[in-house]
């Protein structure tokens, strides 16, 4: 019975948070002289109204799923990877470089380009991992700083070695591209690409690694209790590094999705893409589970795509969508707090 209650609570928290987020958004719309019903109708219309926006939503989801998985994977093993943004940027760059430089048949070229993204992201995760394992440097600080390093290194490389026209690189060769005429045709020429299916596969892979493999068991054990894990003979330090590498690799592939799928190039970034940072919200809202991440990515991806229609259809500022997203995250975070307090109370009672 307790198990059912737990599951119900787990599901209820994000749903309540989403509801509150939209509710607060409605109040803001009212206060700013807009009709919230019209606003949200336009939003929904902008997400699933036609094949094009739906395709764009799925396209937008793709990197968010990867960054969400990256955050969740690290989190499940007791690490806070705030560096998904940077790992995603270097992954994007690396995949584009491989996509441009090499001339190979597609069966080799495309996987190689994706792999390059994974490796670059993995290296960007390895650094904070090894620093934490070896010198107990907290991963949050290192990963945050590495975001800036990634951003500026990537811009430097593009500006000095790869600039083609304006602010961007050349297009990648078609043999490294994830774009699909089939999917584009299906969705009224949206930019939806094969990466969406890779993202679904990534959800399955994350679940498999954590819950079906021996390593996953070790990683989860170390996440919950590193002391008991080392008493049981596990090598906690190696596991920290491995977990950061896997997390970074997921993020790097997320970047490759943008480079090989959505855009086909990388441009000089004037600021962060926010895809990585949004991954934190996706993982949080999704409760760090594969299915949860998929659904949360759909919500955030949809909000971002639908925001455009809110302005066009109901004259609501797209910034409002950002506010709604922020409020949802706020309510998810605070309901975790509420849950924490509930748990505390309960365990206190049980303890006495």
């Amino acid at each position: 019975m307790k198990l059912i209650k737990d599951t119900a609570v787990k599901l209820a928290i994000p749903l309540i948070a989403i509801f509150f987020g939209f509710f607060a958004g409605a109040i803001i719309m009212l206060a700013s002289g807009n009709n919230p019903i019209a606003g949200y109708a336009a939003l929904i219309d902008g997400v699933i109204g036609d094949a094009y926006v739906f395709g764009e939503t799925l396209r937008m989801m793709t990197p968010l799923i990867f960054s969400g998985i990256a955050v969740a994977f690290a989190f499940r093993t007791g690490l806070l990877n705030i560096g998904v943004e940077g790992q995603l940027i270097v992954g994007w760059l690396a995949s584009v470089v491989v996509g441009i430089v090499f001339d190979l048949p597609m069966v080799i070229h495309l996987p190689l380009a994706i792999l390059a993204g994974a490796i670059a992201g993995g290296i960007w995760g390895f650094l904070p991992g090894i620093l934490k394992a070896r010198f107990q440097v907290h991963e949050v600080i290192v990963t945050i700083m590495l975001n800036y390093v990634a951003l500026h290194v990537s811009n430097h490389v593009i500006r000095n070695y790869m600039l083609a026209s304006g602010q961007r690189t050349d297009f990648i060769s078609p043999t490294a591209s994830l774009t699909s005429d089939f999917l584009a045709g299906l969705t009224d020429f949206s930019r939806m690409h094969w990466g969406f299916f890779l993202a679904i596969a990534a959800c399955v892979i994350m679940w498999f690694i954590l819950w079906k493999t021996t390593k996953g068991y070790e990683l989860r054990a170390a996440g919950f209790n590193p002391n008991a894990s080392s008493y049981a003979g596990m090598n906690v330090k190696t596991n920290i590094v491995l977990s950061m590498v896997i997390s970074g690799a997921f993020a790097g592939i997320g970047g490759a999705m943008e480079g090989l799928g959505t855009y086909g190039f990388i441009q000089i970034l004037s600021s962060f893409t926010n895809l990585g940072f949004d991954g934190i919200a996706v993982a949080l809202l999704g409760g760090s589970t594969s299915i949860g991440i998929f659904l949360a990515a759909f919500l955030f991806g949809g909000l971002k795509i639908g925001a455009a229609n809110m302005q066009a259809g109901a004259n609501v500022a797209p910034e409002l969508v950002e506010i709604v997203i922020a409020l949802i995250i706020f309510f998810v975070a605070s309901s975790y707090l509420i849950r924490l307090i509930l748990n505390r109370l309960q365990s206190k009672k049980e303890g006495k």
Partner: protein
Amino acid sequence: MDYVIEMNNIRKEFPGIVANDNITLQVKQGEIHALLGENGAGKSTLMNVLFGLYQPEKGEIKVRGEKVEITDPNVANDLGIGMVHQHFMLIDKFTVTENIILGNEPTKFGNIDLRKAEKDVAEISEMYGLQVDPRAKIEDISVGMQQRVEILKTLYRGAEILIFDEPTAVLTPQEINELMEIMKKLINEGKSIILITHKLKEILAVCDQCTVIRRGKGIGTVNVKETNQNELAAMMVGREISFAVEKTVAKPKDPVLKIENLVVRDARDVKAVNDLNLEIRAGEILGIAGVDGNGQTELIESIVGLQKSESGKITIDGKDITNLSPRKVTESGLGHIPQDRHKHGLVLDFSVGENILLQTYYRQPYSKNGVLFYPKMYEKAKELIEEYDVRTPSERTLARALSGGNQQKAIIAREVDRSPNLLIAAQPTRGLDVGAIEFIHKKLVEERDKGRAVLLISFELDEIRNVSDRIAVIYEGKIVAIVDPKDTTEQELGLLMAGGKQEKAGESN
């Protein structure tokens, strides 16, 4: 009757459980009243009701015959009720006096009048024979002395009724005796004491009355003079308990664990284990007696591979395991019941089954080519849960949800089932109730009889004396004596643990 405290028919519910069900506790003026019960029986809840931390659903509290509502701890303080906590609430860097007056500082012209405070503290200390130096810093004084500071704290605030929460858990035998003397003195000066404990010996030694609670229900109050250990235990647990650990004479064979000239430095770079030599043979239980902090932790951790030793040699069955990784040591034939089961023994957010396989998950048939077969794991876990009588709703229940005794049984199942030649049990019964203790002691003896070497580390002298075949006394990182439990008294052991010499045991101190 002149009861100083009356708690009549107290009922305290929490959603889903009744922590206190119709419990009555009546304490007379000037007596030491024991509150006896297993862990989780509801002792703390009852005392928290008395101290104003919880409000009861039913029942009444009378202090000195007058009905009172104790809505918060301040009210309890005003009524003269003081609590001596099990975990001291002292600031290390402050002096005794500063700690005592904290939150209740006497002032003179807006400044703390430390001189007056010191005088007051010295006076109270004198009056009850506490022998505390008001100016000593907490970090410089012994644990026993720190506890006396806690007592002083309640007295300084005018407590007439003192609640002692498991006060002897941290003390050496000598300190326990001193504490008992202090308690008697407090009674002579007109105070009343409630002693929360699950140690029967202490009750028999100092208490006048004893109220027993079991699973939230009041079982009854007995006059200590008219009862005995077995009766109290039966009341507490609800069945007969055997105290003497049943075992035959040990038949030790070849040495299993050999430690030669071991040196281990602790985190502060002090030699915590200093040139230690020890040998344990198959078929014997060797108990290590010592006051906490004399190198026990470092000794265990260096054997199991969690701490590097600086020099010396450790072998299991002749195989050199010095500074090997924990996994390699385990595979060389070591089972280890760690001292802190929540921190080191279990992953509390894993299921019981996952915990039971924590040492063997990577082996066939559970793991093949990197894939873990959970059904196989749970099958094995189910078997062991049955065999070791781990009471859990299912093998998939989180370890967190189990009682301490059942958590410990799960650990024992895991460690013993691998049939290690050397079994290290560090404080295996700490915080457990008599029923679980009985089970664990039985298991240790069983393992010994199967021809395994058992290393027992405990701060409970009774446990060491009852279970061990030989006792090694550790002091400042060295084994200072190896004695036979049959012809060594608790007093002698206590002296050795405090650094006294064996042959002069009678004269020193």
